[in-house]
């Protein structure tokens, strides 16, 4: 081509490119579609945490599309499996952003994975909305691009347990048993701080491995410390072991409160402990606004059954909804000319009732953990009794 032709061609190209650029400043947005990169563990040991939550989020997006989408655009979803392994999460996020070019990334059921991806999304200036991950390390301290804790941080878990133990159960000598991983350390640190601030004495704080197969020693130590309330934030397997040992050692005169992460399905927990006598003084916490199968949750369960008739959802299914609701609300608020930055600005103004979790979902300029509330339920192996009150962490205690 001659020089003149080349320059004309180049000019024309530039014209076309800039014209398009002015209209679609951010990737993942076209006239008719917004593309969202959705990811969660869908295989491996933690699939139970992620699969149903991800499907619930998809379900919400589909419902939104059925109602006409957002400002005339339908939501398109690209789904990836991250197995909750930090390396895989980083790979998946990089793929979604640099290859699939999604508008935002929405996903993550595991905290370490969220933290691993944080620097990248911040550098690339892509909003990352977590799915059901607590995400402590990535939302506290808050950074612009990462939103999380839609069912509460682990600090919330620790703080609300302490409030319940001291205020409702009138505990003066409290004991906590948690794991020695990032969750457990956050749980126990906040628990200890809040309990002490409320005037109670923490007489025992046991940290156990998530792979523990025998809890005799920690339970003996706790028993020897003579607490009047015991609190546990163990995962499902160890939680059952704790419940069993608690029963074996006939410790029932001391109430035991178990955080939700260890008791996704209370009926299964009771069956596994295999000893209803152990549950005469047993409570569990939950970030939801009702029992998992309670009246307020029924509409979500029914909707899920419509979309996925062959699957019985795990206890964490509805946890996937608040984040998807936040995304669609923020997209609505940001208007038709939404960009990644205006999306974030809109997210920061959110403060709404999800009808899924206890308490509101809220963000602010300096707040990136969406939920801070918990309810408690007394459970005797058969009947659930909702305890009064919604307990909320103030966002400061224990920091």
């Amino acid at each position: 081509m001659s020089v003149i032709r080349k320059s004309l061609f180049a000019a024309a190209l530039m014209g076309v490119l800039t014209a398009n650029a002015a209209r679609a400043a951010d990737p993942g947005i076209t006239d008719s579609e917004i593309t969202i990169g959705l990811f969660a563990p869908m295989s491996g040991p933690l699939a139970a945490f992620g699969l149903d939550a991800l499907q619930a989020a998809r379900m919400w997006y589909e419902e939104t599309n059925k109602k006409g989408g957002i400002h005339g655009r339908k939501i398109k979803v690209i789904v990836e499996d991250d197995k909750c392994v930090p390396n895989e999460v980083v790979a998946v996020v990089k793929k979604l952003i640099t290859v699939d070019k999604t508008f935002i990334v929405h996903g993550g059921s595991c905290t370490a994975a969220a933290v691993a991806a944080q620097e990248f999304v911040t550098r690339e200036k892509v909003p990352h909305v977590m799915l059901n991950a607590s995400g402590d390390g990535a939302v506290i301290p808050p950074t612009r691009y990462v939103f999380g804790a839609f069912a509460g941080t682990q600090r919330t878990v620790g703080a609300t347990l302490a409030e319940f133990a001291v205020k409702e159960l009138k505990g003066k000598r409290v004991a906590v048993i948690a794991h020695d991983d990032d969750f457990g350390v956050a749980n126990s640190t906040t628990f200890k701080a809040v309990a002490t601030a409320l005037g109670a004495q923490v007489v025992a704080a046991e940290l156990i491995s998530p792979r523990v197969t025998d809890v005799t020693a920690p339970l003996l130590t706790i028993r020897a410390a003579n607490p009047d309330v015991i609190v546990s934030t163990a995962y499902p397997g160890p939680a059952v072991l704790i419940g069993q040992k608690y029963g074996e050692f006939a410790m029932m005169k001391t109430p035991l409160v178990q955080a939700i992460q260890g008791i996704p399905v209370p009926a299964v927990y009771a069956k596994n402990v295999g000893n209803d006598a152990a549950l005469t003084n047993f409570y569990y916490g939950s970030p939801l606004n009702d029992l998992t199968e309670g009246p307020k949750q029924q509409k979500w369960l029914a909707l899920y059954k419509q979309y996925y008739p062959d699957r019985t959802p795990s206890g964490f299914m509805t946890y996937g909804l608040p984040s998807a609701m936040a995304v669609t609300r923020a997209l609505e608020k940001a208007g038709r000319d939404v960009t990644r930055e205006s999306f974030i600005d809109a997210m920061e103004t959110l403060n709404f009732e999800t009808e899924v979790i206890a308490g509101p979902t809220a963000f602010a300029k300096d707040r990136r953990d969406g939920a801070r509330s918990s309810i408690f339920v007394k459970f005797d192996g058969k009947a659930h009794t909702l305890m009064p009150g919604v307990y909320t962490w103030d966002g400061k205690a224990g920091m």
Partner: protein
Amino acid sequence: MYGAPPLTRLAPLALLLIAGFVLPLLLPQYFLYLGNFLMMFAVLALGLDLLLGWAGQFAFAHIAFFGIGTYATALLNVRLGVPFVVGMPLAAMLAGLIGLAIGFPATRLRTVYLALATFAFAEAAQWVFNSWDKVTGGPDGLRIAAPNILGYRVGTDPTAFPVMAVILALVIAATMYLTTSKFGRAMCAIRESEHVASASGIDVRSTKAWAFAISAVYAGIAGGMYTLFQSFVNPDVFGFQQIVLLLSMIVVGGLGSIPGALIGVALLGLLPEVMRTTMRGLLIWQELVYGLILIGAVMFMPRGIWGFIAGRKGSR
């Protein structure tokens, strides 16, 4: 087969270097990330192969040295402001020293016991990474500041890629020299039969201990490489799963051969990505498929893929 490697064998390394500088201009970050990951694993695998494939020592403490390398390089940078070009060699030397310290008592142990003792050491190291909150950040992990190489800021995939390629090329070249040197011959002799090696005048204990140390230095270097392109490290990275993955890589690729180790890294490193994209509706079957691949590999190619190919070619 012994003696300094001819320049023709070094030619592929030039290709690696060229790719290292050109690919970041062409590929999206996702592929560069995978590439960085594989290059780091290649250094790890070569180091383990030296100990396992060349010297015949069934030692699995490798991942502990990887962790030491990573945490040491990151901490030197974040806490003391030590630049990468100084920090990584220091970290690698630290790993090497600990490797040497482990190497001497380890030489008294036979096969199974050596494997189990070193495996226990690796698990104990992971426990330390997880529990020494003040230094390593404990279970919450450590954020890694972007390293600085003589003014060139690294920390993203495109910027790290050429540096990783250079380091890998140097490591491969070093491995070539090492395996064809007198030390390399000594390692092979010990692998075949310690008695005969000893009778031939090789100091078995010292060679074994140095093999440990050198292998640990490799792992330490890989740890430094980790800090080049990752922003966060936590103890979960240095666990049982990684040891198994490394082991599988060099066994499937072919023990005791440089091409074998590299093939194994490429195959098993990319396998999760391949499975993830090809098995969309069947994600839950990934574990099963992975197990079947491992079993299939040892059943049909117990000398590894490279052993299979080289066997076909006739020469070795």
